[in-house]
């Protein structure tokens, strides 16, 4: 029990408390005259300020003993336990606050990353749109060019076919005319025959 309390409580240690108790017993035993008949024999009055040495003495002894023993075995451990718990709670609150701050930082980082990703996606989308537009434009241009070329080619083919057909017609017409003229020269032809010859020639022309 030595030095269990700081001054002035250190006055109550393993030596002084038993000494006080011994003093209490001795004081109670030896001067019996002090305590005798203070309350027992006299007329009881209603004066609350009436002095009583025995009560004063025992009150002092009881309180000091209670304080010394409870201070050692109860109140100091209780104070230490409450302090430890308060410290524990404060530590846990601090840790929670720290974790909260870290979570906020992480949240901010993720938010930044998310924003960056959104920007990136937006840029990619814009680039893709531009690329798509460009490709579409290219395809359109190429299609137009191809169509134009095809049209030109078709026109040329038509023109060529027309020319070829006209040439064939001319050649057939010439041949037919020659053939017809030859037949006309070799035989006298009556008007009805002449007409039949022309029709036959025309039918041959159509068939050919």
């Amino acid at each position: 029990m030595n030095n269990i309390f700081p001054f002035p409580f250190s006055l109550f240690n393993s030596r002084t408390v038993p000494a006080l108790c011994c003093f209490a017993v001795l004081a109670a035993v030896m001067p019996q005259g002090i305590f005798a008949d203070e309350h027992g024999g006299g007329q009881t009055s209603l004066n609350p300020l009436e002095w009583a040495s025995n009560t004063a003495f025992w009150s002092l002894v009881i309180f000091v003993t209670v304080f010394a023993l409870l201070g050692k075995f109860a109140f100091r451990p209780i104070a230490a336990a409450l302090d430890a718990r308060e410290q524990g709670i404060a530590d846990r609150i601090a840790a929670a606050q720290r974790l909260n701050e870290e979570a906020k930082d992480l949240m901010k980082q993720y938010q930044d990353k998310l924003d960056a990703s959104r920007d990136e996606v937006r840029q990619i989308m814009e680039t893709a749109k531009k690329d798509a537009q460009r490709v579409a434009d290219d395809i359109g241009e190429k299609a137009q060019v191809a169509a134009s070329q095809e049209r030109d080619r078709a026109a040329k083919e038509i023109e060529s076919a027309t020319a070829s057909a006209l040439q064939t017609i001319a050649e057939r017409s010439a041949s037919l005319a020659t053939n017809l003229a030859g037949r006309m020269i070799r035989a006298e032809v009556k008007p009805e025959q002449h007409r039949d010859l022309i029709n036959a020639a025309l039918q041959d022309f159509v068939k050919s």
Partner: protein
Amino acid sequence: MSGGINVADLAGHVKDTYSFHFPWGHWEIPQVLQTFGISKYVLLEFGAAAVMFAVFIPFARHICGGKQAKGRFWNMLEVFLVYLKDDVIIPSIGSAKEAAPYIPYLWTLFFFVLFCNLAGMLPWMGSPTGSAVVTGVLALITLTVVIAAGIKQHGAVGFWKGMVPHIEGKIAGIDIAKILGPFMFVLEVFSFFVKHVTLCIRLMANMFGGHLMLAIFAAFIPMSAWAIYVWIPITVCAILASVAVSFLELFVAFLQAYIFTFLTSVYIGISIHQH
């Protein structure tokens, strides 16, 4: 009128005696104990001390190592202790570090006063704190602790010198502090001791007054027994008034324990942080 207030009978309920008054008779404290000066109040103080040991040592085991108290009673007890420490003692003394050495003393003081006050709420018992002797001893111990706290902080000379507030200024070339200093010192020292006397008187007067009032209400019943038509209403009123005053006394028991502890904390704080 067959009844009448017998001062001795009333005093038996509100004063320290060597016997307990029960409805079935008186129990005289054994002569051996009387020889040692052990009276009713002393026995009740022993009882209060025993209750404190029975309550706080198990509680200390319950919460040792920072464990949480479990159960309504232990939680209630912890609420008292934490409230006193955090909301009464530390703010009154200054800081947690300064208050730490005095917390066990102030806890002891609060619960000792409280249990002594509450002893008066038990039938046929009494409040030791209704005696100026008991409250005087408590005030004396508080005075000792306050002086010791001041001396520890400022030194023996510094503590007494520090009671005089700092005075500046001169009158006709003479320092005012030199003129008023001695008077201020006497006044402050007188005020210092009176504060502790009031500590004693306040607690005693509240507890004594309350129990005396209960005794007087109870005394109305035999006083009015001379006529049945008076006795019945007076008895009913006396019982109702006694119940009401008992509730008030219960509140006062806690309030006065709080005030005693709070003022002690304030006085310790003042002695540590002087003018």
